């Protein structure tokens, strides 16, 4: 029997599915208006005023059946633009935004006009993206244009990739935080010099922003009261009055109950999203932040467990309503309008004890109930401390085809935080972030994913001596004609030199990103809940958080480089079945007319089958790579690395020629950290064993492992047990993360032909979930071709 609360959830879900994805220009318009009104003021004050203007004027709405309210745009599922980051994107894509291949957004003629007349002129040459285009060094531009690196996305959208200070928000309320800022301000004297003045400017920006957030909540309360007055249904009238009461109180004040705590989090989530239009403002450990409110309300008889679940489900749908607008190219790299707002359950508490509680189960239940693509539900599975019943709940949700939760091996996450310089006492409180990155609630700053390095590109550049196969132009350094390599060591030296240069170029880009972010990306709304920003008088963007971590470089094409190196070692040097000249000729011709060479390339053991000959390169290459990345410093600490290819393996593959692995030109690189589709033939256990050879915990921005399983494998209790065995073994093997698609291939193929029949079909793209029919065809194809593990044997 479905629970009664599911009637409301089903209605809200239907409403959600009925909305087309649209573009909102009004947020950008009000931001621009705010900047114009404060011309000449410090950028921080201009931005804060602009956001206050948005919060005070943006269109707001309350939909039927809603208990929790708000939104970032004029309607659900609409994208917004931060003109101060990337105004020129819309100008460039004005005529294609509604029809582009990845993540199209409907934009009305009226809004196009508003944008071109009122928004665009102000920002030309001024937004962060335009500044980057003006400043971009030639070496970075050349590598970017050659398709070896993807470097633009963080200039398009700003800070996200964090876990805001939810505990601070719930403890103090925005009003309380504002009061602290006022007290700090009162103690400062601008006669003390520039340092004091900088603090004064920062605290003022906090106060202005806080006023805006409080005003927005009160507008929501006003609207609820107005609707209540017009409402004829007594039940709904009471609900609307309750909404008014809740929004009148939070987020200005600390919540008095579970309902208010959820609304407080939601309003703040929307406000910080509006500030940057960035992905991954993570909800963190909601089961920990909310448990005291929940327990108290249950004990006091103010709420039933069903009501608590209903509110959580409502919250889930509100999070799913956010949609990320990005430029067409960035969208190709993470298609599916994904926000990657992550919620995690389980793990251990700050005393190192089992943290699983009622809400750990209920957050998973919310994902079961709502069956939408967001929030990005995950679990921190601590094998030593968490009960089997909790793991089983996660396995049940995965089996339902929800694609979530993704499962983290908790100890690996803890190690990553330690490796980021966070002491163990706090690392125990880590939160997964975005796709698979690591974070810490209210304490840690970094961009976790500033851009992509193509490992397929590294091999391509070795084999072509630095030339793009697309254009014939020199795009990278020259590491010698491979035909002249006398030994395998010569070959590896070239590989390493190319890696060095790729990393060097990314580090160059990072310096500009840090520079532009410090100057043009203040985030007062976000800084409100970072206690150390308050204590130090510094914005998050300027290093105000307790822990600052160097930005993360994302690595794509692990199986491609691993298999290519093994193939060269085996065919050219160990077994001498082929000369380098013959290999180069075959690659130059994309194996056309060289079938025998391609067969030889394919015959070498492939990563994903638990074969030491090839897997050893997973350890060696990736240890070398992360060593190089960590050599580069920044104002926020040395650079960091992750392997979270998102959907970027598809577009980045389009610049990479044929590889010694046997892969033909322009095809996608391998997804995640897994095997190249179709080359892992020994089942799930062998695949995981291979994957365990990567030095996971050193890639502190996470390593992402996709597994596609045939639903038949998970049938019955035994199937669920098998799933649990896999997850436990993942931990034993020290593999950080796994996530699952449990779908028949035939269903995916049918969805390509009959998209209307599969509008709510969920797939795990990478570190996030999307509606299959909303993805571009080539990304759909990439998901279909991933090896499906049809049975354990």
């Amino acid at each position, binding site marked *: 029997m479905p629970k009664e609360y599911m009637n409301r959830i089903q209605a809200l879900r239907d409403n959600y599915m009925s909305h087309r994805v649209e573009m909102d220009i009004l947020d950008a318009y009000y931001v621009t208006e705010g900047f114009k009104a404060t011309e000449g003021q410090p950028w921080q004050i201009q931005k804060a005023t602009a956001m206050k203007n948005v919060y005070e004027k943006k269109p707001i709405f309350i939909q039927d059946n809603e208990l929790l309210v708000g939104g970032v745009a004029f309607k659900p599922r609409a994208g917004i633009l931060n003109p101060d980051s990337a105004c020129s994107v819309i100008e460039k894509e004005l005529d294609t935004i509604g029809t582009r291949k990845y993540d199209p957004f409907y934009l009305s003629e009226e809004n196009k006009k508003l944008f071109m007349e009122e928004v665009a002129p102000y920002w030309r040459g001024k937004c962060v993206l335009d500044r980057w285009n003006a400043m971009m060094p030639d070496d970075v531009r050349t590598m970017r244009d050659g398709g070896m690196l993807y470097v633009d996305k963080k200039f398009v959208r700003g800070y996200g990739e964090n876990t805001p200070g939810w505990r601070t928000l719930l403890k103090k309320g925005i009003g309380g935080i504002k009061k602290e800022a006022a007290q700090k301000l009162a103690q400062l004297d601008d006669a003390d010099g520039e340092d004091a003045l900088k603090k004064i400017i920062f605290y003022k920006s906090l106060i202005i922003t806080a006023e805006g957030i409080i005003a927005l909540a009160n507008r929501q309360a006003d609207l609820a009261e107005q609707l209540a007055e017009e409402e004829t249904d007594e039940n709904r009238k009471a609900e609307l009055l309750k909404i008014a009461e809740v929004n009148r109180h939070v987020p200005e004040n600390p919540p008095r109950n579970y309902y208010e705590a959820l609304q407080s989090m939601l309003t703040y989530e929307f406000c910080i999203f509006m500030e940057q239009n960035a992905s991954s403002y993570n909800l963190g450990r909601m089961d920990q932040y909310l448990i005291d409110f929940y327990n108290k309300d249950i004990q006091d008889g103010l709420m039933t467990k069903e009501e608590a679940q209903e509110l959580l489900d409502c919250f889930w749908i509100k999070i799913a309503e956010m949609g990320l607008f990005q430029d067409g190219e960035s969208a190709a790299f993470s298609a599916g309008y994904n926000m990657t707002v992550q919620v995690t359950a389980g793990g251990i508490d700050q005393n190192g004890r089992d943290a699983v509680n009622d809400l750990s189960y209920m957050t998973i239940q919310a994902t079961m109930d709502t069956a939408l693509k967001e929030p990005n539900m995950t679990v921190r599975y601590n094998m030593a401390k968490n009960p089997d019943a909790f793991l089983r709940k996660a396995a049940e949700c995965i089996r339902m085809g929800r694609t979530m939760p993704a499962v983290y091996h908790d100890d690996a996450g803890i190690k990553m935080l330690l490796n980021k310089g966070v002491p163990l006492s706090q690392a125990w409180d880590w939160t997964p972030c975005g796709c698979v990155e690591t974070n810490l609630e209210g304490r840690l700053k970094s961009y976790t994913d500033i851009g992509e390095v193509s490992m397929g590109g590294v091999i391509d550049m070795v084999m072509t001596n630095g030339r793009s196969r697309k254009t014939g132009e020199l795009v990278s350094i020259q590491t010698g004609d491979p035909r002249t390599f006398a030994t395998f060591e010569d070959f590896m030296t070239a590989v390493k030199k190319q890696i060095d240069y790729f990393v060097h170029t990314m580090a160059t880009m990072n310096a500009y990103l840090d520079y532009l972010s410090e100057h043009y990306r203040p985030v007062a709304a976000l800084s409100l809940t970072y206690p150390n920003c308050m204590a130090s008088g510094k914005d998050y963007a300027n290093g105000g958080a307790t822990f600052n971590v160097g930005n993360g470089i994302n690595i794509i094409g692990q199986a491609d480089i691993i298999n290519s190196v093994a193939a060269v070692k085996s065919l050219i040097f160990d077994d001498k079945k082929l000369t380098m000249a013959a290999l180069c000729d075959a690659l130059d011709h994309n194996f056309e007319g060289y079938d025998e060479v391609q067969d030889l390339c394919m015959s070498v053991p492939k990563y994903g089958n*638990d074969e030491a000959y090839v897997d050893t390169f997973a350890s060696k290459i990736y240890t070398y790579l992360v060593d190089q990345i960590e050599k580069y410093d920044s104002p926020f600490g040395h650079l960091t690395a992750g392997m979270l290819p998102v959907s970027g393996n598809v577009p980045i593959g389009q610049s990479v020629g044929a590889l010694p692995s046997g892969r033909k030109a322009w095809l996608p690189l391998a997804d995640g950290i897994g095997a190249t589709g179709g080359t892992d033939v*020994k*089942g*799930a*256990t*062998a695949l995981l*064993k291979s994957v365990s050879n990567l030095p996971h915990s050193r890639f502190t921005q996470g390593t992402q492992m996709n597994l596609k399983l045939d639903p038949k494998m998970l049938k019955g209790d*035994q199937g669920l*047990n*098998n799933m*649990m*065995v896999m997850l*436990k*073994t993942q931990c*034993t*093997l020290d593999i950080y993360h796994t996530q699952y698609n449990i779908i028949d291939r035939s269903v995916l193929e049918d969805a390509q032909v009959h998209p209307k029949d599969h509008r709510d079909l969920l797939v795990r793209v990478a570190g996030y979930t999307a509606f299959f029919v909303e993805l571009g065809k080539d990304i759909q194809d990439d998901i279909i071709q991933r090896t499906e593990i049809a*049975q*354990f*044997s």
Partner: protein
Amino acid sequence: MYQEYEGRDLSGTVLRIVKSSIYDGNGLRTVVFMKGCPLRCKWCSTPEGINAKIETTKDGKLTYGNRMTVEEVMAEVRKDSPFYFHSGGGMTVSGGEMLFQAEFVAALVKQACKEGINTAVETSFYSSWEKIEPILACLNTAFVDLKVMDEARHRAFTGVDNEIILSNIKKAGNLDLPNFKLIIRRPLVPGVNDSEAELVALGQFLEALPAVQHLQLLPYHRYGTDTYRKLGIDYGLDNVETPSEQHMKWCQRITNNYVKTII
């Protein structure tokens, strides 16, 4: 390699090694299929395991069989030990008839036991007790196929007598070894070994054996017909269908009167 042991360098002919099987004993198992079988069951689902020699399909595309030493097999088996740990799984030696290469298998099973890996075999017990005993001495589970009780029918459908099989099952069924489980399997082939009289005889035979944990009834399937084609061998049972669930239950009710029976 890191250790010397008896039988380490013995070599055998292995058909294939399959990882993470859930059908051949407890948990996730690595199944080592040995080549060669003295029986000629008409329903055999692994015809490529019958011939003791390495053989190639008619089109030359596939080769069945590979010479490996005990240690080479152990190297593959060890790879999945973390999965055995969590699932209660381990190694299963199957065939063909693994007793066809009994010395090799005994060394393999002994070494796996020594390394703490759970061991099982799938066999017909068609061999001398002298070859079986050393394997059982360090084994966790033996799955023994008892195909037909009726002697003439056994010979007709498997090509061999069942006297030695019954005698070995009797001996194994009276063993009192710690950690040893004997499970009898009956592939139910309609019209061949599923009559009431046949099932009663089976139940009565097993009832008297204390080490028998249970009887497992397996429905006949036409698996392997594709391989017959590839090898150019005729398939012996053309007109037999897979038994219905209802019929399986009927059979179970009969044998359950004598011995615990699962489907």
